[in-house]
């Protein structure tokens, strides 16, 4: 390594619900990404747009309004200048997280100085699985379990493997997610990285400025009353899983040299990361081995970590993580501002949100030194990134 990769700033649009009355039912995915990129640069006016070295942008469905090599498309659409290159990334739910570590690596090896990294997923325009054609050998050769390709089923499988992770504990975690998100919203936490967007609707243009997904009135009873859509008597419900959502956002990473040249104030630095593969039919377990690997590589324990921002694809996966690291269900260090169960999970985008919330946490907690962002990934993977206060 010749340089350090700093997280400078991050911006996202409010997360919408992926349905025909949702925020973004009449808005293109790429336009959402353009909005976040322009707002990011507006907030950092000393950074000349045409000196961005690369735009790394993730989407799971790379077709239609998420096709055409997103990073480069966005560089042009956002008016960064024709000399700014870009590329597209896909690692399913960890798309933006992968974009961020790739961007960080480009800086760490000294190849680049300023990189935009982020993700977008318009699940309304691109329903999960609608545009893919899995190779039949996955099943005929028994390469994966038939349940591995439906994420809700993998969550049920995870329950099977971890009988201690009960439906009740998962619902309790889901409620906590709603409560913490509502409090963070009230405390203005999201104002540090959410920008309003003007969106079209058949009733005219609207301004949206808060996440659409949270249900602040959620009660233990309302959660308990939900049935699992995945198997009769199942434990995974709409209440203790992330939703189907539309969202976009990205972060600005910079080298020491760029920080100095443009007078930037880094919020944190990217220290290390780990990706792992796990059984596809229990993909939700991914964050556990990924985080373990990351901690071991850096000779740390979970006690050395002040805050974890973990994607809440399913409550079961989060509770299993808490159990694995002997953390209580209501651990203050895990998802202090709530998570995807309340906020929603626009697949490839979510990794960027985790980094933004971690940066905000470090900013507001001077005593905190170190944080991890982590997520599970479809087809059986886990990812974890280690960050330190800059």
């Amino acid at each position, binding site marked *: 390594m010749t340089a350090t990769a700093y997280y400078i700033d991050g911006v996202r649009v409010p997360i919408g619900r992926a349905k025909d009355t949702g925020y973004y039912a009449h808005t293109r995915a790429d336009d959402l990404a353009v909005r976040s990129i322009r707002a990011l640069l507006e907030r950092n006016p000393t950074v000349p747009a045409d000196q961005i070295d690369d735009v790394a942008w993730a989407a799971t469905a790379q077709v239609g309004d998420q096709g055409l090599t997103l990073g480069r498309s966005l560089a042009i659409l956002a008016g960064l200048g024709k000399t700014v290159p870009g590329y597209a990334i896909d690692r399913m739910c960890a798309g933006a997280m992968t974009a961020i570590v790739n961007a960080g690596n480009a800086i760490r090896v000294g190849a680049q100085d300023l990189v935009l990294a982020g993700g977008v997923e318009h699940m309304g325009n691109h329903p999960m699985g609608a545009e893919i054609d899995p190779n039949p050998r996955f099943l005929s050769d028994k390469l994966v379990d038939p349940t591995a390709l439906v994420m809700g089923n993998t969550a049920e499988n995870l329950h099977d493997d971890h009988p201690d992770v009960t439906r009740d504990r998962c619902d309790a975690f889901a409620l906590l997610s709603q409560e913490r998100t509502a409090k963070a919203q009230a405390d203005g936490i999201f104002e540090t990285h959410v920008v309003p967007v003007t969106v079209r609707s058949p009733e005219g*243009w609207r301004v949206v*400025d808060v996440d659409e997904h949270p249900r602040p009135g959620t009660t233990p009873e309302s959660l308990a009353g939900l049935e699992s859509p995945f198997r009769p008597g199942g434990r995974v419900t709409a209440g203790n899983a992330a939703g189907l959502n539309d969202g976009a956002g990205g972060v600005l990473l910079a080298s020491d040299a760029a920080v100095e040249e443009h007078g930037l104030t880094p919020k944190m630095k990217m220290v290390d990361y780990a990706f792992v593969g796990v059984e596809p039919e229990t993909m939700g377990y991914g964050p556990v081995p990924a985080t373990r690997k990351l901690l071991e590589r850096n000779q740390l324990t979970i006690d050395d970590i002040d805050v974890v921002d973990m994607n809440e694809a399913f409550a079961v996966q989060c509770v299993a993580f808490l159990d694995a690291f002997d953390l209580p269900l209501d651990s203050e260090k895990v998802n202090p501002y709530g998570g995807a169960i309340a906020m929603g999970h626009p697949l490839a985008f979510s990794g960027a949100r985790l980094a933004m919330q971690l940066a905000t946490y470090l900013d507001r907690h001077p005593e905190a030194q170190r944080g991890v962002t982590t997520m599970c990934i479809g087809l059986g993977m886990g990812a974890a990134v280690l960050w330190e206060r800059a």
Partner: protein
Amino acid sequence: MSDPVTRFHLTYADRPVGRLALLTMDNGEDHKKPNVFGPAAFESLSDALDELEAAEDVAGLLLTGKPFIFAVGADLKAFSQLDFALQAGKLGHDAFARLQALPFPSVAAINGACMGGGLEIALHCDARTLSTGAQVLAFPEVFLNIVPGWGGTQLAPRIVGVKDAIETIVTNPLNNNQTMRPKEAFERGYADRFFDSATFLDDSVAFLEGLISGEETIDRSGLDVMEGFEEARNNALGMIEGKTAGATPAPHKALELIEFAARGGDLAEGRVKEQEALTELVSGRHAQASVYSFNLTQQRVKKQPGKPDVPARRIRRAAIVGAGLMGAQLGSLHLQRLEVPLVMKDIDEGVLERCREHIEGELDKRVAKGRMKPGKAGFLKSLVTYTTSYDDVAGADWVMEAVLERMDLKQAIFADLEAVLDEQAVIATNTSSLSVTEMATKLAHPERVVGFHFFNPVAVLPLVEVIRPEKVSDEALSTAFEVAKQLKKSAVLCTDAPAFIVNRLLTRFLGGSIAALRQGNSFQEVDDAIRRLGLPMGPFVLLGLVGLQVALHTAETLEDAFGERFAIDPAFRGIADSGRPGIYDWEAGGEVYPDIAAAVEVEEGATPLSADEIRAMAVEAVADEARRMLDDGVVADARDIDTAMLLGAGWPFFNGGICMYLDQTGVSERLFGRPFVTDKDHGRG
């Protein structure tokens, strides 16, 4: 099918600075059907204003359009119904004044095309933001021979100053309906902020919030409303005289209204004056004819009436035979618009060399203006073969003939072409007066020949007369229409009758004018009298432009074909044989050449005609000829004649070409007992 209604949708957003109202103009269609204001739109606006006036918690308003379109003004279809047109002024003034009076800041976010009433509603807001992606802004009313009638003439001078108001409301419309690109509109002061289209509405919302919070302000204190008034007014007056000969009242009226506002006239009084002017103009013949002309040239002709419903031959290689002045212009046009390999064939190497200079020079000009990349120009140059051999013409799908107007020569060339072309290749002739049918008679495949008559200068005049000889195939005719479209020319179909449409009518018109000379009127008197119809120039100035010999040649063709009514006046022959470049000696201050003046013999005992009599004589001659052309089936429809005269002769929109003028002024009824334009659907069909 009913037309979409532009509605004003109202939504709210609760933001830290307070409640924002967003008013969206949207007719529910894509950008090809822009937002326009008709009666239902005003009802919808009125409902929205009721709600806004009653609201107690609104802190600011943002008015905007749908993607790519803000609003393009009045619904022309609704305007052609006189009762709406007459009420429209008041409807618009009342609604827009209510918008202006709202007790909170308002911002018009001009996101897309913004014309006429669209620009007027925007001017009624407290401030305007403009998107870099708003393709076009304009006040086209004067072009349609009305005035901006919803406050445009009263507010524009107050907001952008009188000079820019005059230039955009009066001068631009007269100057081929010139419009503003967004940067120009911003620089003229039509918007207070200029935002990138990528996040235009987000930035506009932020600007409105800034106005509410006081972080943003609008400062127009530097504006000197009357600055540049005299010069702008004089320029406009010059343009009015040059373009309309004062034959339509709208431009003067607009100028008066702007001046009233600029000199500090009361706004309410100005609104009344504007309304009165609109009411008077909208029911007048000029405005009605303008809408008709607009529809003919912008809609009807683009549908290419008369094009056979068979596929056109695809043009992969084109050739022009005859590389002289006309051929070189045609070559340049074909190369730039078709962008296919092009063969320029002539018998003279020197002519070919001059042709190359012309074609390459035209490309170089585009490069110099930044409209074409040098590499592209180089490629296009490489596509052209300059040759004296017919062998090089082989393989062409479309051959344009542009040699001297001699039947034997053209027939010989056609025979040579047929020897190298494949059976379906189309041969088009640019003849202006010879029989296309006769030209084709000696061919094995006469069905491949079509007439394709351009107007000089080719690059400027948008008309092509597509001539249908007796034996032409549907495919050849269809191909001619398709080539016209690709060349970006408007095609009007006519049969293979002598001199086709435009030249036949102009020659008859000229005959009427020359007759006046025999009565003792001077050339200038005749030109002046005729020009007051609103024509771009009088017949004798035009004669110089066309060329005396060319005009005589056409006249001879017509005399041969039709005899007495086209009998060539001996004076005309004398004039044409004078060897002069035209009637007037422009180097001597526009005096008539003495030998030309001497060629005219005034009849004994004749008394000079009045200007009215001169006009009547010329107009009635044209009326007679137009009637014959329709009765003989030379054209299918009076609207074709009008389209041709508008686009080929530059006759004014406010006369609707010529047939509409004859109908409106009662000439048709008096001479024939019936109108020319019988289709109620004035140009939309």
